[in-house]
């Protein structure tokens, strides 16, 4: 998947785990937690969804890479480079 497709995957995950949030103006450079209600259990949902969807195992020491949309996409790009994008 290309970075833009990965961004959409993460956006779709956020929409499922935070269904009350308006994500249309999400700023990729600002921490998720600073622009939406997202606690540690929600954050683990992001990790879990990626694990379920793409068998991506993200070790706890790498969680710091999932702070913003930009950092998340950057971190996932090499891990998902050989994965087909969702239909």
């Amino acid at each position: 998947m290309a970075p833009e497709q990965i961004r959409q995957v993460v956006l779709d995950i956020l929409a499922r785990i935070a269904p009350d949030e308006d994500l249309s103006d999400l700023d990729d450079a600002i921490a998720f937690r600073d622009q939406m209600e997202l606690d540690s259990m929600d954050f683990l949902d992001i990790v879990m969804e990626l694990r379920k969807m793409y068998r991506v195992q993200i070790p706890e020491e790498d969680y710091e890479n999932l702070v913003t949309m930009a950092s998340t996409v950057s971190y996932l790009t090499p891990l998902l480079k050989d994965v087909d994008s969702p239909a």
Partner: protein
Amino acid sequence: MTNAEMYNSRIVITGVGLTSPIGDSLTDLRGNLLAGKSGVTEFETRYMPPVLAGVCHFDALKYQKRKEVRRGTRAGSIAVYCANEAVNDAGFDWENVARDRVGVYLGITEHGNVETENEIYEIGKFGYDTSVWSHHHNPRTVANNPAGEVTLSLGVTGPHLTVGAACAAGNAGFIQGLQMLRLGEVDMAIAGGVSESIHTFGIFASFKSQNALAHHDDPTKACRPFDTGRTGIVVAEGGAICTLERLPDALARGAKIYGEIVGHAMNSDATDFVLPDRNRQSQCIELALKRAGLTPQDIDIVSSHATATEQGDIEESSALAAVFKDHPNVAINNTKSFIGHAMGAAGAIELLGNIPAFDDGIAHATINLDHLDPNVPLTQIVANEPRQLDSVDCILNNSFGMLGINSVLIVKKYQD
């Protein structure tokens, strides 16, 4: 006990919130009970053909965000809905209530089966890889979950717990609240019972294996307590929660008073895992009457527990016959015939659906009673059509459960 202490120990119902297969408010539930409307429908469950169930249709988003619904449990949503409805109905100035003096006490038949089954189903899609088992599983399945979700919703910082009491749980929740008020542990109790049981296949499959799961071509006729044509239990979901207060507190704030809990009792059969015992049941009823200072002749309506299993119906009716043999005019009715067995919520819903009788004097019916089982030794059952009584001052509510747990509550029309 001094007169002042006795006065302060009087516990009254001041607010009601409920959801049931035939109504998400007391007004709607009562209207459908008097109209004879069943809430039993066909229902899809996993791994087995469609079953019959009582399904609720309340709006969970009335008091929860979508994220809270997703994160919590169905029992939690039911509890949050009912508790908020009760608190609103009671007319509290909630922001100024001392919420560290509020307790939440909810009866449950079971909790966690739904969530565990869901997770096993989910990891089954991944070859039973436990690394995709949800981190939400534990907070969803801790036994206090439904009561805990109420505290989160209402900002209650006093005690909360669930009371595991099988199908006696609805009454048990009220009794726990009453006792905590009398002990001075809290100044207001949010008490009742909830159930999400229809969302696990296991409860249906287990009753099916026990030859105790109801079936009928017409779902509305499936639940038939006391009737020779009964085929077993219809499982339902639901919840019913009251705000309970000490009488002086309720009067001081000018609260509406639905009724006073004047008698209660719980005991155990100590005889069998599933089969009930008429002797212990009648003892439980008599203990509640004694504590209330009442005789059987003082009771106007008996809300029966009968689930439409042969032995359950016969044991309870025999217990009632023993206690009420000299009271031919008592009206015995049954709510499960309308909505099925709402498990942990059953006793609470069944009691509350009868409470408006204090005002309208009507005993709602037991529907689907076409051929009274000759082994049911009762002449006082209100069959199929509501019965207008001269007046209703006392309602006795039976609620019994597996492992031989019995509970009885007596509510009296409020009088000074």
